[in-house]
C-alpha cells in the first residue's frame, strides 16, 4: 500500500514539474509588454527601431539561456538603467510613483467626507427638491415676520 502511494506521488510530481517549469519560462511577448525601447520612448512591444530589434535579440538570447522574466528585466536594467522598465521599481524614490497616488486618493476622500459632513451639518440639501432628510429648516424670525406680513397683505 505504502509503495503504491509513493509511486503515485512520484508520478504526480513528475507530471507537475515540467508544467511548473513551463509556467515560469519567460516569453518575448510577455517581456515586451513590461519593458521600454529606450530610444523610441515607447513599449518595446510597439517599437520597430533598430535599437528595439537588438533589444529583442538580447531578450531572446536570455530566454534561450532559460532566464526568468525577473532575471531578464534585471539584465535589461544593467544595460539601459531603470528607465527601461515600463513600471518603475517598487523601491527607493520610484516607490513614490505608487505611494503618492494612494495618499492623494486618501486625502481627497477624507476632504470629500469632511466637506459632506459639514454641508449636512449646515443643513445643506434640506431646502431643495427632494432634499435629503425631508424636514425643511425652520425659517428665521425675520423670514417669519415677512411671511406673516405677506399673508396679511393678500388677506387669505
Amino acid at each position: 500500500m505504502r509503495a503504491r502511494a509513493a509511486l503515485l506521488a512520484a508520478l504526480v510530481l513528475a507530471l507537475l514539474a515540467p508544467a511548473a517549469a513551463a509556467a515560469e519560462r519567460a516569453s518575448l511577448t510577455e517581456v515586451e509588454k513590461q519593458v521600454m525601447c529606450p530610444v523610441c520612448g515607447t513599449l518595446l512591444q510597439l517599437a520597430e527601431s533598430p535599437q528595439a530589434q537588438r533589444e529583442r535579440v538580447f531578450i531572446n538570447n536570455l530566454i534561450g539561456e532559460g532566464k526568468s522574466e525577473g532575471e531578464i528585466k534585471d539584465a535589461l536594467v544593467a544595460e539601459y538603467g531603470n528607465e527601461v522598465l515600463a513600471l518603475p521599481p517598487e523601491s527607493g524614490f520610484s516607490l513614490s510613483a505608487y505611494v503618492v497616488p494612494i495618499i492623494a486618493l486618501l486625502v481627497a476622500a477624507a476632504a470629500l467626507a469632511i466637506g459632506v459632513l459639514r454641508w449636512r451639518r449646515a443643513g445643506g440639501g434640506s431646502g431643495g427638491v427632494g432634499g435629503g432628510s425631508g424636514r425643511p429648516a425652520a425659517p428665521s424670525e425675520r423670514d417669519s415676520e415677512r411671511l406673516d406680513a405677506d399673508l396679511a397683505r393678500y388677506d387669505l
Partner: protein
Amino acid sequence: MSFRSVIAVLGVLAVVGLLVFGLASKGSSGLAVGDPVPTSALPRLEGDGSGSLAAYRGRWVLVNFWASWCEPCRAEAPALEKFQREHGGPRFAVLGIDTRDLSGDGQDFVREFGLSYPQLRDGDGGAAHDYGTSGVPETFLVDPQGRLRLHVPGPVDEQTLEGSVAPLLPEGKS
C-alpha cells in the same frame, strides 16, 4: 490669511513645483559654444573602472556619441579612427561614448572597426541627455579648459574633421 487659504496656496504651489520639476528633469537645453561641458564619470565600455572628461583637462578632446545599431555611426567610425591616428597625442584625443546600446554590441563595434581611442558607456543615455543630443551620432570638440568649441550634429567625415576640427587644434601632431 485663513487656514483654508494657506492650504489652497500650498496645494497650488505643490502642483506648480511638480510641473517645474518635471520640465526641468526632462528638458534638455543643449550646449552652446563656450559652455562648460558635463564631466560626470561613466563606466568604461571594455574592462573595469570608469572615465570622465575631467581626466582630459588640459587637452583637446573630440567627444563622439555613437551606438552600434546606428548606421551613420558605422559610416563615420573609420574617419574618426583615422583622425585619432593622425592627430592623437598628448594634446588631443578622440573619446567615444556608446549610448543607449547593449554593451556586447558596443564592444563588437569597437573590434569590428578597430577603434583605438578610449570608449565610455552611457547605457541609460544620461550623458547624451546632459550634452543635449537629439540622436546619434553627434560630435563635440572640447577645448583644454573644458569648454565646447564645436558641435557637429550628425555624422562626421574626413572632410569635416580636417576642414572644421583640425584647424582648431594646436599646430603639428597634437
